[in-house]
């Protein structure tokens, strides 16, 4: 894909990693979008922040690993992982509990952030 067909995609992820297969399929879509050469960013809100919590052992419930996908983002040229500050704090989490360095932004700036993308995909 070249020039004018390149769009800014934002994936808004609000669901925890292991209660459903939502995260798995959302990440499949995200990586496919990146493979199409699109500009992909990820916004983690609410329980979505648990996606990148350290120390997950999904094999204990016979589930596929979700978190390592986030570590492969660089290969796919997924540039930004943004986390809402309030979502982290409400869940007793801090940057040090997360698998990778992230950008944090306050809740009141979420609307403006979403609005500066071309396509928004929820999951």
């Amino acid at each position, binding site marked *: 894909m070249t020039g004018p067909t390149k769009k800014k995609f934002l994936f808004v992820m609000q669901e925890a990693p292991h209660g459903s297969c939502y995260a798995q399929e959302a990440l499949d879509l995200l990586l496919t979008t990146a493979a199409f050469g*699109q500009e992909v960013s990820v916004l983690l809100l609410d329980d979505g922040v648990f996606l990148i919590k350290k120390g997950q052992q999904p094999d204990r419930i016979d589930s596929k690993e979700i978190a390592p996908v986030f570590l492969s983002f660089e290969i796919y040229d997924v540039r930004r992982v943004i986390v809402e500050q309030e979502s982290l704090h409400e869940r007793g989490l801090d940057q040090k509990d997360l698998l990778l360095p992230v950008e944090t932004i306050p809740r009141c700036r979420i609307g403006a952030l979403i609005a500066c993308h071309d396509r928004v995909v929820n999951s």
Partner: protein
Amino acid sequence: MDSTHTPPTMKFAIQINSGPYQSESSESAYQFVRAALRKGHEVYRVFFYYDGIDNAFRYASPPDDEKSMVQRWSQLARRHDIDLVVCISAAQRRGLLCIEEARRVGKVDPDLADGFRISGLGQLVEAAIEADRLLVFSA
């Protein structure tokens, strides 16, 4: 909306993430598509993902006094030549197979209703890029 409001013709990409017996989202998406067509817009593609693939089961057989979402989609595809695409990985996970795949695994019947086709996630990404708008209908 007033009658002087004459918006430009647009291409819509629609993503449906939930089944007809799970939420109202299939109904909302269907009514949105019909309204967009009535207004002269183009529906570039409707893509069924996650449990949205439940909209494409050929043998869904609701009682006579209930609507059949599957039949409505098939009819819409026939009348307006709309591209209804079911995600292959989501479909296979949930046991919805097209005729070729059904044969390959030794199953007799195709599960996919008329007017739908099964393809990859790239079809959703391409639609999101090519269309002017992407609307997601989820549970």
